[in-house]
């Protein structure tokens, strides 16, 4: 009897431990899976921009895709050096959003916050041991790895070719 109670207590303690560990690490695990899918589905290495096709019923990488947006993105890794992310800004709602490995949306720039029609961000690691370039567009990433997402609104289907042209000029370069 005593032994059964002992094992029951072990199960309860381990259940509580697993519960906390799963809740805490679930966002990070999901982000690791997203990074893996970006690299395998689009056959691109880290710090390289991929471009999604126009969203339709066959788009099944992420649940509830938005059919009004053109998506591009990249899996970033700034552990070895800064990464320069740039894009011309299209004449429509447009944004670049930065997500840490715990899913936090730590930075956003959009078409209204950019002057001159061209966006540039130098992404660096919060714990960088490398020299940080002097640039007013520095953004510090709270995690060495994460995901950057470009969104371009298709506000008029007639402008789709123009917007796709803008979408495909987004790029990322390793500065090391």
């Amino acid at each position, binding site marked *: 009897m005593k032994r059964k109670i002992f*094992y029951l207590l*072990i*199960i*309860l*303690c*381990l*259940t*509580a*431990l*697993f*519960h906390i*560990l*799963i*809740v*805490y690490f*679930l*966002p990070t695990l*999901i*982000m690791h899976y*997203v990074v893996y899918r970006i690299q395998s589905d689009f056959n691109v290495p880290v710090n390289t921009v991929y471009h999604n096709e126009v*969203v*339709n*019923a*066959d*788009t*099944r990488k*992420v*649940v*509830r*895709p*938005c*059919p*009004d947006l053109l998506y591009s993105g990249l899996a970033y890794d700034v552990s070895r050096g800064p990464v320069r992310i740039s894009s011309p800004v299209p004449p429509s*709602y447009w*944004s670049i*959003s930065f*997500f840490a490995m*715990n*899913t*936090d*949306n*730590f930075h*956003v720039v*959009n078409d*209204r916050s950019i002057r001159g029609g061209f966006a540039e961000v130098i992404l660096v690691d919060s714990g960088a041991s490398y020299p940080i370039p002097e640039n007013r567009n520095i953004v510090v990433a709270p995690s060495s790895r994460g*995901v950057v*997402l470009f969104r371009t*609104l298709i*506000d*008029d289907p007639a402008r789709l070719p123009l917007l796709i042209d803008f979408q495909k000029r987004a790029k990322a370069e390793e500065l090391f």
Partner: protein
Amino acid sequence: MKKTLIVAGCAAIALIMGAASVLLAVRYAGQRGWIANGAWRTNPSIGMENLDMYSKATVALISLMSLNRSEAIYYYTETDDSGEPLRGSCDYRIEGEDIDARWWSVSLYGSDQYLIKNSKNRFSFNRSILRGATDGRYTVRLSSHPEEGNWLPTENEEQLYLFLRLYNPGSDVLNNPSTVRLPRIIKEACR
């Protein structure tokens, strides 16, 4: 050997129970912070950095890569205005007017939470629908059968989900997420 097996069995049971309890916790505790507006629901904390670990786990599961509220606000519903689940076997009328945001759109998803395949390739309606409206109001119909005017095909999906996205929301939406006027969803008939 026997003791090792018992401990391994205990660990396996605990892992299953731990995972199951997480799903329950995310389902119930993760509902904290949600705001209702008619049939629509939103969580103003989505995309923010100061979430507790349960809300963060919920966001990771259902709204991954969502923008923060200054950039976009998301509302979703799986029911009509009377609280009944949205079914592909029923016809609905969505009535609305312009919303205080730079751009808005309403997308329709099926039981699997993906866009519904249809011959017309119609998946959403958005602010551009107002171009044809004389009084700033519009009506959209959800139905598995072709309808005149603005129509989104439901293809008899078991469960439907509507997702309203507001980009660069105005102060009316930011300050009054539970009272700002959103599209109404009225059931007309079921088959």
